[in-house]
């Protein structure tokens, strides 16, 4: 397996080895989303460049608020070291959000947005992560060494850092100082290695296309969709492994861990949907048009595209045949797990 290095890669048009898919918008999610995003992006971009890792960022700006500047228009000024040639930006028309919604409380279709990016990513390997996740040194070393293999889902432990860490600028010392840990990191345990799953899922592109990304059938919650991906992965014959090092996340107002209990007793109002749905037990089969395949796409600038709205790109509101039971495979762990629903299953 060749190293994911820049050596021999002449132009940005050549397929990169690694695509990093992120999603977000300029909506003050978690109060200071922009600041956190730019800070993280700056750090990651610098580290990837320093290690000579051939990469692209695939950013999906989902239903951006029309009254605010878009992130794509701010990012290159905010992160001067970011090479536009290494970035693909997709802005998705806001009407898709309503058209796809099965729960009006969900303010953001994070995983459908990520599917848009996954579908269009060019890297041999695709990492889906989040805008405030710092890549750790061991992770970068693996990228640089070319030890990635297909048919594996790579996971990384997430270390949660205290809120004020890196406020003045992020360095390795900030990330790696155990004193800065907000809580003991949660271990990754076989076979699923779940836990902050959405912050680090790295898979070869071919496998991601085979499984068709994240669950687009169940759109009544966004909680658990990343966990559900692991069920799909095992059901599809992929194996889940620990990449061998952590990623880092700085706590912030609005982050799930800090707000999870706010909706106790009124789960149906939570902005993440019903946490108790069977994300660990059922699997899915997305339609072949997953990731808004048929969205009319306009190139608005080099490396920037706009996905215009078309009902042709919107999957059926209800596609029950896409709800399937995960398949066991000889010699592999059971992919699904029954747990009684632990929250009221019905949203109001």
């Amino acid at each position, binding site marked *: 397996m060749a190293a994911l290095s820049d050596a021999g890669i002449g132009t940005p048009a050549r397929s990169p080895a690694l695509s990093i898919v992120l999603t977000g918008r300029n909506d003050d999610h978690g109060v200071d989303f922009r600041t956190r995003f730019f800070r993280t992006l700056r750090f990651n971009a610098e580290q990837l460049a320093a290690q000579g890792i051939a990469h692209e960022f695939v950013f999906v700006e989902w239903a951006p608020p029309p009254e605010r500047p878009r992130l794509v228009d701010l990012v290159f000024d905010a992160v001067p070291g970011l090479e536009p040639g290494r970035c693909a930006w997709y802005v998705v028309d806001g009407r898709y959000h309503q058209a796809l919604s099965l729960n009006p409380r969900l303010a953001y279709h994070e995983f459908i947005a990520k599917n848009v990016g996954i579908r269009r990513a060019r890297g041999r390997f695709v990492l889906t992560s989040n805008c405030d996740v710092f890549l750790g040194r061991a992770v970068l070393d693996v990228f640089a060494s070319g030890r990635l293999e297909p048919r594996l889902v790579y996971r990384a432990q997430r270390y949660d850092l205290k809120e004020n860490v890196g406020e003045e600028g992020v360095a390795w010392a900030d990330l790696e100082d155990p004193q800065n840990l907000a809580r003991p990191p949660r271990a990754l345990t076989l076979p699923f290695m779940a836990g902050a799953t959405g912050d680090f899922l790295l898979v070869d592109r071919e496998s991601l296309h085979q499984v068709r990304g994240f669950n687009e059938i169940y759109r009544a919650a966004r909680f658990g969709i990343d966990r559900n991906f692991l069920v*799909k992965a095992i059901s599809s014959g992929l194996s889940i492994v620990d990449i061998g090092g952590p990623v880092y996340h700085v706590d912030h107002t609005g982050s799930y861990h800090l707000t999870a209990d706010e909706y106790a007793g009124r789960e149906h109002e939570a902005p993440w949907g019903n946490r108790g749905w069977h994300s660990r037990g059922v699997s899915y089969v997305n339609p072949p048009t997953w990731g808004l395949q048929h969205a009319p796409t306009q190139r608005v600038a080099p490396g920037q595209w706009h996905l215009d709205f078309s009902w042709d790109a919107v999957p059926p509101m209800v596609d029950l045949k896409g709800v399937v039971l995960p398949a*066991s*495979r000889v010699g592999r762990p059971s992919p699904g797990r029954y747990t009684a629903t632990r929250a009221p299953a019905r949203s109001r």
Partner: protein
Amino acid sequence: MMPVGTASVPYLTIIATGRNDDFGGDFNGRFFRALHFNHRQLAAAGIAHEFVFVEWRPIDKRPLLASLLADEFAGLSSLALRSYVVDPEYHEAFSLNPRLQFQEFIAKNVGLRRARGEFVLTTNTDIYFSRGVIARLQEATLEPGVLYRAARHDLMSDLDVSDIDWDLLEDERNCEVVNGIRPPLFTNASGDFLLLDRQTSDRLRGFNEVYRVAKIHIDGNYCMKAYTSGVRIVDIGAPVYHVGRGTLHAMRGMYSGRPGDAPWGDVRWKSDVVYENGDGWGLGLAPERVIDRGTTFLAFDWQAVGPMVDLQRVVSPGAPQERAL
């Protein structure tokens, strides 16, 4: 690896029937998946085979499933994939029970009559062959005068089968029911796997076309026909797989109190009686014309439809020499 059979005289003809009616939900998708899988395995084992698909009573204003099949399997020659589209008028002409929407076994007879393989296998569109079945075919040691049966393993309904391989099929955790088969007749989901040499198949003249009031148990009735005709029935020793327990199982409870209303006919009919199909079995006298690559249309002609009622062709089981006629 020695190839088994040739393209012009394949070792095996596989006969299935259906139409573009979304029967059981995503009928076409299930059909194509199974066909791709089985074809791949047979080809890898060097077993020369042909698929004979019979489209019975095609739905008006919908693309022919035979056409969709030809598109999906464009890489197969017209020797390896042959389809027969039956004029919908035949369904009405044959009908003795308006609740039956699809004459599955007369359709299969159309395929049986036109098979070219040394051995013919009637099955269904969503059946996956096991490794053991493939291995047995590869050995080319099937005997004439023997009807081979295979137990059907039903995998769980709603299982994610978007990526089927042996590991998935063979994992017992995915299996909901094993439809066991026992001597002497080895019935129980028999319509999913009936394999015998073509000469014997021609001698038996296919499935019962005399009793058309039900389609349930027609397959078991064929086993009785074979048995009383001196054909030995054996378990081939390996299973076939099916996803889900089937539409019949799913709907059975709805008609338990009124079996005569069921869309498959009355389950209580005496399927132990035997039959003798006429010379024109399998629409043997239907005029044929080629309508597409590998696709033949059987046009309607009353000559190809036997008498509505032909009681002399209903015979009792028993030793062959004791049978009527």
